[in-house]
């Protein structure tokens, strides 16, 4: 019996575990190592951050699901990978450290035949002095953060009710942040809740971001057909900001956050101060800090991981100018080039470069979004790579040829812009391919028949449906496989 070891039970790791288990039908072992015993539907954390949902509505106990399905589970975090084994273990193995009550701090080597690294991001608040919930800004990246943020927002709303004017700043807290979509959603949900609470007129809302223009979202924005024009998302996004009375600052790298004040640098290298009463600023992401050693015990971390801590796979990592980027640079099989039983999916794999054009300030500060790896592509990669591994485990390596390049894959994304069942709105977007391909689609890099966007109440209904649908699927309830990634 062989073992597939999956590190991380987030959107990609959990999806891979369920699909692999179903396909292997108990003939081989699937083991998941993840430090948090709760599974979290991260996209709905936004709604926790505005009090529309409670943490328990966006989480469930992972162990119960794994127990029911027969998937082995260790509540632990991976520390070090030994892709050639070590002096005690002939087989490749991973050093893990338990985080569960009773075993906290205990370490153990877990052997594997196949490994998927789906450890997602480290929320790197330390990259900007003063950033994050332990310092001077809030976050919605985890359900815990979002809950704290909602508590702080309630206090602010109360003060506004008592006649105090407030400035709210939402966006990215570093020059190289990704996930602008999440901050965008939070901004518009806050705007909606302020209106509902009757205090919108007391708040000045600011968006601050490292995007070149509004509507970039880390993927260079997108063009869609509308009203007889092919129009860039910048236009629609600016329209929404103007409509809702939100001011915006783009091309900004937040350099420091202090008590009720932040400093940001613009592309001219000029520093600006912005004061605020409440700030929700996303951190930049890096890999979770896994290290690696070879059989002799020598450090091979840089062979497995890029400098940003994400795992190298089959992408083309040769440094290239923007004009020389190609869709072919993007990974297809997510397999490590040397250790062909090691894979990385979701946010954990190292992208070859960004999707948005890299920009630097005059003083050399990078100010551009790193590439987003949202839920749908993370799930699709997870499924395809799990199937490939299962085919290899089941003795059918010739079938293990599925690919999931972000340059050949589309994504559907619903960005909430106010959570009300009868008066809420959300932006519904489809984009194909995620990484623009200017060789195939010369004008805009995308297929205009599959790249669409609109705002309305229907989007909110769909977002709600997806919330329940994906949690149902993640609980592996009957017919879960009918719900697509």
């Amino acid at each position, binding site marked *: 019996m062989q073992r597939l070891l999956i590190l991380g039970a987030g959107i990609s790791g959990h999806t891979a575990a369920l699909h692999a288990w179903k396909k292997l039908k108990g003939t081989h072992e699937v083991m998941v190592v993840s430090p948090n015993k709760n599974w979290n539907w991260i996209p709905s954390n936004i709604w926790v951050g505005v009090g529309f949902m409670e943490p328990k509505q966006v989480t469930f106990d992972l162990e119960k699901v794994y127990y029911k399905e027969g998937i082995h589970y260790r509540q632990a975090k991976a520390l070090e990978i030994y892709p050639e084994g070590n002096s005690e273990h002939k087989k490749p193995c991973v050093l893990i450290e338990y985080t569960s009550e009773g075993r906290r701090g205990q370490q153990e080597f877990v052997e594997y035949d196949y490994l998927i690294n789906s450890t997602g991001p480290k929320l790197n608040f330390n990259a900007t002095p003063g950033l994050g919930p332990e310092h001077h800004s809030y976050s919605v990246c985890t359900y815990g953060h979002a809950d704290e943020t909602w508590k702080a927002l309630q206090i602010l709303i109360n003060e506004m009710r008592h006649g105090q004017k407030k400035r709210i700043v939402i966006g990215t807290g570093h020059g190289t942040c990704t996930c602008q979509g999440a901050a965008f959603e939070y901004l518009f949900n806050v705007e909606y809740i302020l209106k509902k609470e009757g205090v919108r007129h007391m708040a000045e809302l600011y968006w601050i971001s490292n995007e070149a223009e509004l509507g970039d979202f880390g993927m260079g924005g997108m063009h869609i057909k509308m009203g007889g024009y092919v129009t860039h998302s910048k*236009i629609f996004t*600016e*329209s929404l*900001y*103007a*409509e*809702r*009375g939100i*001011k*915006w600052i783009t091309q900004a790298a937040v350099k420091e956050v202090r008590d009720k004040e932040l400093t940001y640098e613009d592309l001219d290298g000029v520093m600006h101060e912005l004061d605020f009463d409440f700030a929700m600023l996303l951190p930049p992401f890096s890999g979770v800090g896994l290290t690696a050693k070879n059989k002799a015990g020598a450090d091979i971390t840089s062979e497995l991981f890029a400098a940003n801590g994400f795992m190298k796979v089959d992408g083309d990592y040769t440094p290239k100018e923007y004009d020389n980027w190609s869709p072919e640079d993007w990974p297809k099989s997510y397999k490590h080039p040397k250790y062909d039983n090691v894979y990385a999916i979701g946010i954990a794999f190292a992208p070859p470069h960004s999707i948005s054009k890299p920009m630097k300030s005059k003083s050399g500060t990078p100010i551009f979004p790193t590439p987003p790896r949202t839920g749908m592509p993370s799930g*699709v990669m997870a499924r*395809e790579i799990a199937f490939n591994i299962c085919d290899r485990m089941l003795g059918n390596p010739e079938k293990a040829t599925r690919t*999931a390049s972000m340059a*050949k*894959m*589309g*994504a*559907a994304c619903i960005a909430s812009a106010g959570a009300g069942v*009868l*008066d809420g*709105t959300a932006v*519904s977007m*489809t984009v*194909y391919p995620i990484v623009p391909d200017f060789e195939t689609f010369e004008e805009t890099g995308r297929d205009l028949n*599959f790249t*669409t966007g*609109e*705002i*309305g*109440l*229907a*989007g909110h*209904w*769909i977002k709600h449906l997806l919330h329940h649908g994906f949690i149902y699927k993640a609980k592996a309830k009957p017919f879960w496989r009918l719900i*697509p*990634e």
Partner: protein
Amino acid sequence: MSKRIPYGQNYYPPVPTGFTKWKRISKFWQFFRFMIINLKMLRMVRKH
């Protein structure tokens, strides 16, 4: 919509008319859009 300040940031972008805003939350129209958006998303899902 916030008051448009000539030559200000919010002066230039297009903003929706009352009818467009009404359509965005009209239950009848949005039910129809709900079907269409779901079809678009399914089409995207089937591409992979």
